């Protein structure tokens, strides 16, 4: 792994969330400075800020993109108790030339009475649906019935989880065999001995979401939760950020034909890692769910990978080296890019050590000791 480039985001306060769009050509950032910025990647891979605007009257916790089938749509949630939906307007051509885009607020969702802690779009096969969860313990599911009119959102479901909610994740499976399902995590510190992760499933008969399972083994505060892409499997995989990283397998049990209740799930723990030493704050899967990333109190991002025998291991660590780049805060355009990487550190020592052993080498001599060259140990491809 290597740092390809660094981008001065130029937020006036802490960045809380960064979100890639579906194709990886755009990103959105949000911050305690109450703003959201949208960035576009140019042909040569440089990031340019094309929009920056005040979105909320409090810290913006999360920002997320809708699937491009629904156009260019963002949702944000904030400490100011609201969530908002934003749509990009195709503007005047001279705006485009200047590299700017226009985003307008389509709706503010004001149902929560407390800080809205997470916002997620439902899988696209369900239509344009937005879910929020909040500190008051309620998950709300909104729907935009007309994808061409995003100012109309109706509150379809309000699910009380009884615990202050911190995070939600939709099961991305679009298989007909699976009903819509989401997991919600809680960081409630008042209740100590109950399960902090609940799984809800849609029931076609009652047209409501009902609790399918509570993960009773997770009793500590949960900060993030992520379903893995399904890969066509019959079971689901769920990663949880709590006092450690945990990976669960949820296996739907065969339903009795008469039963109309939610699918019973068999919960199996696949892996558990306490390498972050203390709290883990974020977990997230890559596209093919071959890598799980987690971020924790040790200040590192750790990458976890299963080999072909399904053994999970840490294969990479991204770590702050204690030398923050200082922002060029005076520049409103914020497009300065620091190219280069700080990866190479101690290879010279390695090279020096082995150089003397076999003497000179002609240009096409065998590589020999060169295998200890920079790249060798740099990226072990774990398998």
């Amino acid at each position, binding site marked *: 792994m290597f740092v390809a480039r660094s981008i001065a985001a130029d937020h006036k306060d802490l960045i809380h969330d960064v979100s*890639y769009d579906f194709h990886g050509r755009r990103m959105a950032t949000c911050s305690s400075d109450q703003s959201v910025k949208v960035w576009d990647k140019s042909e040569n891979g440089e990031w340019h800020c094309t929009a920056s605007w005040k979105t909320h009257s409090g810290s913006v916790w999360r920002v997320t993109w809708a699937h491009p089938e629904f156009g260019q749509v963002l949702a944000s949630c904030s400490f100011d108790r609201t969530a908002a939906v934003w749509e990009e307007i195709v503007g005047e051509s001279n705006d485009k030339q200047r590299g700017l885009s226009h985003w307008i607020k389509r709706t503010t969702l004001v149902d929560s009475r407390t800080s809205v802690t997470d916002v997620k779009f439902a899988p696209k096969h369900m239509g344009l649906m937005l879910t929020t969860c909040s500190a008051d313990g309620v998950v709300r599911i909104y729907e935009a019935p007309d994808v061409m009119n995003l100012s109309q959102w109706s509150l379809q479901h309000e699910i009380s989880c009884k615990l202050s909610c911190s995070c939600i994740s939709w099961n991305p499976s679009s298989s007909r065999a699976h009903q819509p399902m989401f997991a919600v995590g809680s960081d409630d510190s008042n209740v100590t001995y109950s399960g902090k992760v609940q799984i809800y499933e849609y029931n076609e008969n009652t047209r409501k979401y009902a609790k399918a399972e509570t993960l009773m083994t997770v009793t500590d505060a949960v*900060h993030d939760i992520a379903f893995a892409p399904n890969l066509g499997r019959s079971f689901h995989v769920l990663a949880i950020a709590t006092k450690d990283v945990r990976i669960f397998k949820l296996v739907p049990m065969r339903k009795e034909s008469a039963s109309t209740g939610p699918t019973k799930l068999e919960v199996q723990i696949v892996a558990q890692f306490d390498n972050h030493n203390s709290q883990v704050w974020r977990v997230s899967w890559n*596209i093919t769910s071959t890598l799980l990333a987690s971020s924790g109190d040790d200040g590192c991002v750790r990458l976890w990978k299963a080999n072909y025998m399904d053994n999970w291991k840490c294969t990479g660590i991204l770590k702050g*080296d204690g030398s923050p780049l200082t922002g060029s805060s005076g520049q409103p355009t914020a497009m300065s890019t620091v190219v280069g990487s700080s990866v190479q550190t101690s290879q010279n020592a390695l090279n020096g050590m082995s150089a003397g052993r076999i*003497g000179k080498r002609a240009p096409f001599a065998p590589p020999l000791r060169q295998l*200890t060259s920079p790249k*060798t140990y740099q990226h072990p491809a774990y398998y």
Partner: protein
Amino acid sequence: MEEVDVEPAVTNIPAASDGKHLGFAWGPGDILVYETLYKASGSGCSFIHEVRKDEDIYSPNLRKLFNESHHIFVGLQTIREDLPSKNKKPQFVSISKNYRSVIRACMEELQQVAVSTKDAEVATQYGNQVSILLAIELIWNLCEVLTLSGSLLLHLLDWVRLHKADVDEKAAEVLQSESPAEHHDYWDVVVSYVLQGRLEEARQMLVKQATLHPAARKMYKLMDTLLSKMPFYNPGGTQTLTEFDVKWRHWHGEVNRCLQDNSFASNQHLEIICKIIVGDEDTLLEHKELLSTWYHFLVTRLLFSHPTVKPTELHYYAQSCMTMFLDARSVPEPLDNILLAAFEFDIHQVIKECSIALNNWWFVAHLTDLLDHCKLLQSHNLHFGSNLREFLLLEYASGLFTHHSLWQLAVDYFDNCPEFGRVYLGLQIEHIPLDTERKALKVLRICEQRQMSEQVRSICKIMAMRALRNNRLGSALSWSIRAKDAAFATLISERFLQDYCTRGTFSDLDLIDNLGPAMLLSDRLTFLGKYREFHKLYGEKRFSEAAKLLLSLMTAKIAPRSFWMTLLTDALPLLEQKEVIFSADQTHELMFCLEELTSSLNHSAPGTDKPTQDEDIEQTKVELLRLALARNLAMAIIKEGTIEA
């Protein structure tokens, strides 16, 4: 099997570490990392770092390697399973050689660039890439020799010769000098030739020395005879093992005798050569500089001491040669362990060690695939053979997918992964940026060829939405027809009709005129198509057909009620023609339609005080229509009566 335990690689991010958190976001090809704090407030520097996984994928110099090995890979997959393995072996060997020649070609190109560049950093970078390719080729070649070739020792000699090519450079230098026999590298070259078993070349070199020293002629002649008589064992040949053994013992005894009776005592160089060919280990080890590697030492030792070595005995010699050759203080390095594992025929260990030591999946994926095709993974008692192959291919292909153009190669790799290839392809291809229509069509074709209907639908929907946002109605319509998205087609048809109402003309006539059966996707689209057909008939002055179509649009309820007034207004010029176009019956039906429309309008708009201007116009329109209809009815009745009479 035991796991190789490695510490995870650490990548340093230029960010503060104490008490700060690192936030992150996955993208299709990379991961964004930024400094943040969860559950606390405070300030942080607002930099975002783009971290990539596979550096090699982005190297322009390796493109050739990826592209050409892709062709070889695809070719390998088409070798038929049912052929007897005897017929396949030569094919596999030639494929293996093709892979290696691609590596070589790539390496040579890199080497040239590295030498010609003036930037020291770039030169180092290229140099590193070259050395990794060299290592890869070395390992690959050894695996090929050990698993695919017969006559083990001869191939091992070739292997050493190929990877110790500096002898040839040195020889060329010596031969080009004015007096080769007096060149200071002369004896190094001769000894190197002998060490590599290139006895013919060694003899030719010795002739030059012999002519310079006529007095020692007899001694040179003796050495020449010894060298020329050395037997080589070729298991594929006509000679049996016993025959060879007898011959070899005889020759070996002869060399030994020469050594005992000090035939070469007067010339230290010839003495050394004699000691080498008799297999004297101490002498060999005194020439570490010329051997340069323990595996060269191994092959030379086998040649002169154990020429009939069996594959199963190799690991014993390999291990001991490595120990003897390396200093006591040095530990074996990754390459040593990899080669040792190969000599032990532990293919699985080779692949495992390579995955750890090399940062790219190219090598392990292709080598494993080849060995799997040769059925070599199973024969080494690995029950998960094919899983390993698929696992590595999926990793390699996923890496390719992060590249803006190499992803197209990855498609074929995924196609050849029976278990998860299709799912991976589905997940990855969705994320290919659809920058242009052309690229979208390319991605679409790949999905269509594989019947990935969900991805096809999604791509079309994304393109339709984008076109609509940019007000390109025609493109939006054709994409939503491809997506079979009825709701969206309805919406766009509506826009077309609105545009027509305001501007009086249609855009994208080509598309609408050629809808064909696609028209049936949605009612509104059907209406749009039919309505346009009416305009065409009218334009071509086929009035009665046009009139019939117009009427049927209303009576068959194809036209939305909101559009009826427009249709009726369209009927006006037909009614006003000199000729009677609408028959009496048709006129009646038109009148019904008008009444139905006006009565429903009256209901929906209950008594307002003052009629607005719009309502006035509408009222005038209705009256005009009524008048025209009545006149037409009269004319039609007269005409129809006249003809019948």
